[in-house]
């Protein structure tokens, strides 16, 4: 890594080969990202290119994932953001870290709460529109009833983490 002059700290990326990831990043947009990374360390790969990666192509939440991990929230990612994303998604990441980022992904309006509107959008993405609006509403109501501890009608990060970390099937 040092020969390319890149300040990537392998100790900070959990078990993920930083060099391999850099080459993948570079392969996404070879014109933008040169092999000599130090000349332009803040270069951003646009969202359209990221969402065409095979790992993200079919994920219904790819837009939200790119938005959460990008610095400005618009989906264009630098190398740092790219590494962040892969390190959180890797199997070695601890569950509470994943739960934290899952919360941010489900929070569509970025207000630090999952409100019923966020839930509806999540449901639509999850079920590809196969549930009727009435059923979607019922499910959202049930979810808020079950998980909302402080009864304010929306889920905060604590509610979410509390519920998810007790679910043994989550993010195995």
């Amino acid at each position: 890594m040092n020969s390319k002059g890149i300040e990537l700290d392998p100790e900070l990326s959990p078990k993920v080969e930083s060099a391999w990831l850099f080459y993948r990043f570079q392969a996404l947009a070879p014109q933008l990202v040169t092999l000599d990374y130090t000349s332009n360390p803040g270069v951003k790969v646009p969202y359209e290119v990221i969402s065409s990666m095979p790992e993200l192509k079919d994920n219904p939440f790819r837009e939200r994932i790119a938005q959460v991990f990008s610095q400005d929230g618009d989906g264009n990612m630098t190398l740092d953001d790219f590494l962040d994303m892969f390190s959180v998604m890797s199997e070695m990441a601890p569950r509470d870290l994943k739960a934290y980022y899952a919360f941010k992904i489900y929070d569509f309006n970025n207000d630090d709460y999952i409100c019923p509107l966020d839930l509806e959008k999540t449901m639509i993405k999850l079920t590809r529109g196969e549930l009727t609006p009435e059923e979607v509403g019922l499910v959202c109501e049930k979810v808020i009833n079950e998980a909302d501890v402080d009864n304010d009608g929306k889920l905060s990060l604590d509610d979410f983490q509390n519920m998810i970390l007790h679910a043994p099937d989550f993010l195995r």
Partner: protein
Amino acid sequence: MNIADKTKHEEKLIASLINLPTRDRNKIIRNQPLTMQEKRKIKKKVNMEKQKSANQSIQLNYCTQCLTHYRHFKSVTSEFFQSLDVWQRTLKIIGSKFGTSVLSYFSFLTWLLKFNIFSFIVNFSFIIIPQLTDPKPNNLSFTGLELLTGAGSFQQTVLYYGFYTNSTIKHKGSNTSYNMQLAYIFTIGLYLVICFFSLLYSMACSFRNNFINPHVYSRGTAKLVFSWDFTITREKAVKLKQRNLTTELKENLSEIRHENVITPLKQRLSRFCIHLAAWIVSTGVAIACCAAVYFLAFNNMKFLREHKNQAATLLLPFLVCCFNLFVPLFYSSFGLVEKFEIPRHQVLVIIIRNIFLKISIIGILCYYWLNSIAVSHEECWETLIGQDIYRLLMMNFLFTLFDSIFGEFLRRIIGTKLIKSLGVPEFDIARNVLELIYTQTLLWIGIFFAPLLPFIHMITLFIMLNVKRISLMMNCLPPSKVWRASQMMTLFIFLLFFPSFTGVLCVLAITVWRLKPSAQCGPFQGLPSIIHAIYGWIEILSNRPSYLWVVWIYRNLIGSVHFFFILTLIVVIITYLYWQIIEGRKIMIKLLHEQIINEGKDKMFLVEKLLKLQESQKKTNTFPLAQERREQEVSLKWSKDGHLFILDKREWSEGTKVNLEDM
């Protein structure tokens, strides 16, 4: 408030990281929910702080040094064991393509495989190796049929009980002696005790993870919605998972709706009658199978004397395996007639019926072995039982192989090429897991009569793992029914414990305490019963003054009724106390929950009052800034000495202290 919290959190984090070794420090920084840049900043700060304090001499306490070494050791060993888990990658791939339910079957299989490896190592080191150093000559020739029947030349090998000597093995020229009798009984006893405790431990762990819910999380709809697996990458798998999720949610909703719907009495009555009829038919079929096995088994001996062919011994196992294969299919055909309101109940009912069938077949076979073969004055009856079990396991293995290859492979070809409407077969988890439990029960019974059996079972399990995996990848779809993987796993581990393991303990207890071992072969030849080996040993020990404490423990603790009575009483009392503690904690959870709701209401009330106060202040104040203040979001914070502070969400300010009397 966020920024203030963040800086405080950062400072605490840096302070806690200074004294840790580099490896642990990096691990903790890695696991923080921060971006790469922030992590790098923290790392730099920690390094700077460390350099500052490195100039002063740090003399770590001996205890803290020990702690750091211990933590390091723990992390290294856990990483080592993780890397040993060879199947982890395979399991990951299966989990991503087929979901957690199929993955749970394969993890169950690998768990049983590890169990068997452990039992093989134990048996091998303590029983088989010593016997191998003093072998008896084997006069019979090897024909290929032995692999299947276990008889013939295999009879006089370490495979069976009859080969083991009852004497103490001595080597010329050395003083050490190895008492085979005691070794045999103690090894198997110890192995069973370890199995017992590890089963209990796994059961308790799964119980704790799956069934301890606060009263709020009743249906798990929320868990379903948020349980999207981000590691699924193939388009087909994604679509499948979405479809499954939709189905599960619809079924959840129908359960909720069903509670509000009252079915008419006539419909309920007809459903009840159908259920009753189905149960009677299934129990009847199970009893009929058991009767068939019983008659065949009891006529087996005469039949075998007439037909001297070795292959004739395979008839009984063949019949048992046919029953095990076809009767469950018959049970699942009930599903066409029998309808369940809650789909989950259907899976449970199938599992209960199948396990009843399998355990009754094993029960009848044990009855036959212990009541008929053992008292039949045959020479070496234990070896005969061992051979029977070997044949059953082999036949079962062959049937499972054929089932995977022909059942799933052919079914896929028929489903895709010939009758397109049938479709690709689904992987039937319940049937496969119950097969595993059945073979494991047989194995546990067989360990006493054929000590090398775990080795053979290990090989068959390994082959089956790979065959099932390949068949799965090539042929099957993941199951579309509702399947709460972790709850089902708890049920399966419980079934493995009761009736499987407890039944094995009963059978072995009867063998050791009641039956007379054969007079001419085996490590217990000549004794009136196997337990007399222990009695004899205690007698010998009571003549040696240095071992009298062992004799005392045996006579007064293990042999006395009062001790067990008192022990049971203590265990019951502790259980009762824990139960009361749990009840108390449930009440506490409810109260705390109410307290959280009330605090939320208090907060809203105070914020409203505050806004009203600010409005009234604004009227007396002509500065436009006050209006800006009203539009900013405020939050309230209680300080340690009981004062209430208003904090601006956007800036970190000291906050205005609110005088509660003004409100």
